[in-house]
């Protein structure tokens, strides 16, 4: 089964690396969608079917935490799983993100196995 995945990160490099990493990890990608900040991410989510969101925290315009909060307040978006991929890994911040309903947290730099395991755990099936 192919999964539609949205990556929200202000770095074009990170978006490209996540795509390549998912492909190398054998994840069956359907549509690979990209957004540069939380505001763009919400626009993509309202237009496209998305199975899983990878989201950075530290972004201009609308940061990842604000985007996730907006998703959780939107009936149509609240059930979409979100994985935060960020450099910011303080215990306090991670606890706050889990309270917001974030499914997992991956600290940069990440390995292909980390992304593959998250996709497998959250979306099920052999990825």
């Amino acid at each position, binding site marked *: 089964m192919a999964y539609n995945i949205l990556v929200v990160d202000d770095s074009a*490099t990170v978006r*490209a690396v996540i795509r390549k990493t998912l492909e190398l990890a054998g994840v069956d990608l359907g549509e690979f969608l990209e957004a540069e900040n939380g505001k763009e991410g919400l626009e993509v989510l309202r237009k496209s079917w998305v199975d899983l969101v990878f989201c950075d925290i530290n972004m201009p315009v609308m940061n990842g935490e604000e985007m996730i909060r907006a998703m959780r307040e939107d009936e149509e978006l609240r059930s979409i799983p979100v994985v935060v991929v960020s*450099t910011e890994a303080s215990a306090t911040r991670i606890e706050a993100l889990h309270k917001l309903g974030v499914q997992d947290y991956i600290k940069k730099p990440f390995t292909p196995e980390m992304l593959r395991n998250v996709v497998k755990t959250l979306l099920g099936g052999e990825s």
Partner: protein
Amino acid sequence: MSKNALTQVFSRIAEQMTFMFVEPLDSPPPPTEPPYMCVSMQFIGPFSGVLSLYAPGDLCRQVAMNVLGVDDPMEAGSHFKPCDTMCELLNVTCGNLLPELAGREPVFNLTPPRAFEIETTDWEAITQDPDAQGFLMEDFPVYLKLIRT
């Protein structure tokens, strides 16, 4: 303490992200050609400051190719953005450095890194700055400087 932590964290992160061998540089840097870039970001928390990275443009291109896993920039198309890649390298370094300095509990807010070109005289000044830590990434020099404000 800061300089030791910076050396260890940057060496580890740069090797993991770029697949390049990284070692501290304690002698004058090998000759390089302009342009030179500076990437800089602020952090605000229990203590605040600025972390900056200085590198020759040739290194930025090599890092971008390695991170994206391409032999030719054309392969990466519009995603080939050497300054953006250096911003991400600094961002990940900063995010991993702060817990080493402050522990895992404190929350820091990081500003998005910004990149800009610097003059050759500015590059020469940073290579002689005792507060900057130099590294060799394979044959290219790179410098990091942490300023607490």
